[in-house]
């Protein structure tokens, strides 16, 4: 089942889906599995697995540190794919790869996609790969029924949104605000307007991320977005109070 179909199917019984985020190998792969178990039991629908990179320039301090620590402990791309395979075997949520383009470039786009399919991944998010540079990998991905996730942002003009929309497959990732990951976003009229604007330019489901901190934000997105992306908030909860903090967060979202 393709990503768009999966989201549409689930949306029949849920008014908003949750996508969570895990940095592979941080604090450790054992902790990652524990986090995924909690996400699964709380009914999380999608998980992006971030492959750590040494120059995560689109990430905020929390993820920067996580990327750095993971690499320091020796995390390799091979381990990340093995972990993805384990996750897609053990759990029922769909898994996306998230990372920076150099990881893909060094491996070669075809080889990367081949391994992504083998690991059971559904698609990928590469925030530093603009549309203009993604022509080849997008067409290869579509051949393999993988979703190359496009990002739409508050600084995108209508003309740009039309271009992005035409290329969108599986799901669109709407960036709720300027800045890097991790700081708080107030889900106000401007975000809802942005979603509405994006919706005009694409038929695929819309996921909203950047600064989604808890139940209140998810509620605000209900009826507007198909998926709420909870990234930094989950890592923050884990760092503050471990597995139980993470559990509390995701249970509060699904209740």
């Amino acid at each position, binding site marked *: 089942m393709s990503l768009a179909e999966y989201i549409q199917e689930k949306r029949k019984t849920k008014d908003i889906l949750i996508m969570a985020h895990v940095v592979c190998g941080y604090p450790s792969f054992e902790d990652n599995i524990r986090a995924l178990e909690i996400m699964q039991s709380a009914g999380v629908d999608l998980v992006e697995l971030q492959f750590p990179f040494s120059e995560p320039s*689109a990430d905020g301090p929390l993820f*920067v540190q996580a990327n750095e620590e993971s690499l320091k402990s020796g995390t390799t791309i091979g381990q990340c794919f093995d972990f993805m395979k384990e996750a897609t075997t053990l759990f029922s949520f769909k898994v996306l790869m998230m990372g920076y383009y150099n990881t893909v470039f060094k491996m070669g786009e075809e080889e990367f996609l081949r391994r992504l399919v083998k690991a059971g991944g559904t698609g990928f998010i590469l925030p*530093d790969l603009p549309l203009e540079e993604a022509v080849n990998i997008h067409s290869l991905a579509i051949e393999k029924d993988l979703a190359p996730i496009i990002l739409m942002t508050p600084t995108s003009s209508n003309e740009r949104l039309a271009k992005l929309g035409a290329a969108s497959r599986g799901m669109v990732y709407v960036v709720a605000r300027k800045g890097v990951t991790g700081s708080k976003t107030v889900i106000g009229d401007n975000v809802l307007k942005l979603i509405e604007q994006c919706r005009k330019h694409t038929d695929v489901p819309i996921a909203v991320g950047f600064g989604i901190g808890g139940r209140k934000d998810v509620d605000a997105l209900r009826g507007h977005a198909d998926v709420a992306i909870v990234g930094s908030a989950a890592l923050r909860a884990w760092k503050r109070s471990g597995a139980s903090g993470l559990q509390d967060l995701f249970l509060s979202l699904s209740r």
Partner: protein
Amino acid sequence: MDIFEFPPGREGYYGEYGGVFLPEILQSTIQELQECFRKCKNDEKFWSEYIEILKNYSGRPTPITYLPNLSKQLGGAQIYVKRDDLNHTGSHKINNVIGQGLLCKRLGKNRVIAETGAGQHGFATATMAARFGLDCTIYMGEVDVARQRPNVFWMENLGAQVISVTDGQKTLKDAINECMRDWVSNMADTHYVLGTACGPHPFPEMVSWFQSVIGLEAREQLLELTGSLPDRVYACVGGGSNAIGIFQGFLDSDSVELIGCEAGGLGVESNLHAARLAYSDASVGVAQGFKTYFLQNGQGNMLKTHSIAAGLDYIGINPIFSYLWEEKKVRFEAATDEEVKEALRLTMRSEGLIPALETAHAFVTAIKEAPHMGRNEIILINQSGRGDKDIFTIADALDDQKWKSFINEKSDQYHREKY
């Protein structure tokens, strides 16, 4: 050859290198910058205003100095030096910064941010911001803040906020990442004054254009002085802005050999250097907004780099150089930390010139090669920066005991004043 005439659909590419690899949120900002730069480049008035400010504010044109003592001592080629160290703020960095300051005004933005390694680019940016009335934030790796305190002192006193970056290796590349993070939040009123000919298009082209003033002057001056073009031109290469600046005066002349001098650090196979092209440890990758040769591992993660000169201590190289190197238009050599110290001593004693540690890398290679050249041949070295402001680093590098005891006394004095 005009390297900036891009084939259709390949804008910002030099062969396979360059491009724009940025998050979608910056797409409109970079497009706005590209359009503004294109207008400025096509506007003769912009260039003449730029040259006028460099003349009245920075002291351009900088002279060319003949080095009779060193030339004689080495017994080969005649050595000439382009004196960009005589610019206001002590290096070629001011050229690019004045240019981008003018461009920032055209963009209607009132805040600038910049990364800095050695502190020279940050110093120049803070100076320009004070002069042009712009808010200024400088990002600098914690390691560099520690080794370049005098530049931090000046930046802060010029009114800039200096933020010490504690991520990653805590050097230049990490300062660039931090600038990107600031820029994705504040692009509406903020221009990113990138200091070298790296990063996403249009930065390599734009920085090269502003720095081309070095090569334009040098070609004319040397012809006037000697009646001929140089046989070889040497410049140090970190990101590669002073080198592309002076090389542009000679790119069209096949008789002139161009030599880029990288940081050999502790030497070949030491794994502690910043030689992307002279050594064989680098490979093609995409990071910090562009595609070029990076010092990275097989998984695409960046390697630790090292140089005695903070300004050369960088993982990637000007994408134009990756192309020109493959086209065999520019040769690359590396100078080790030890060789740099020796060349610095020699240059100071023989000619009374104090090149910056970065610049001294170009002297190393020229000094090695000059004896093997004929006496009628001409070497031109770009003295991109002056070393006297690097007094702490150079005193450390030369292990100067008298300086150390002076600092100890000074420290005792401050301590007494405090308690």
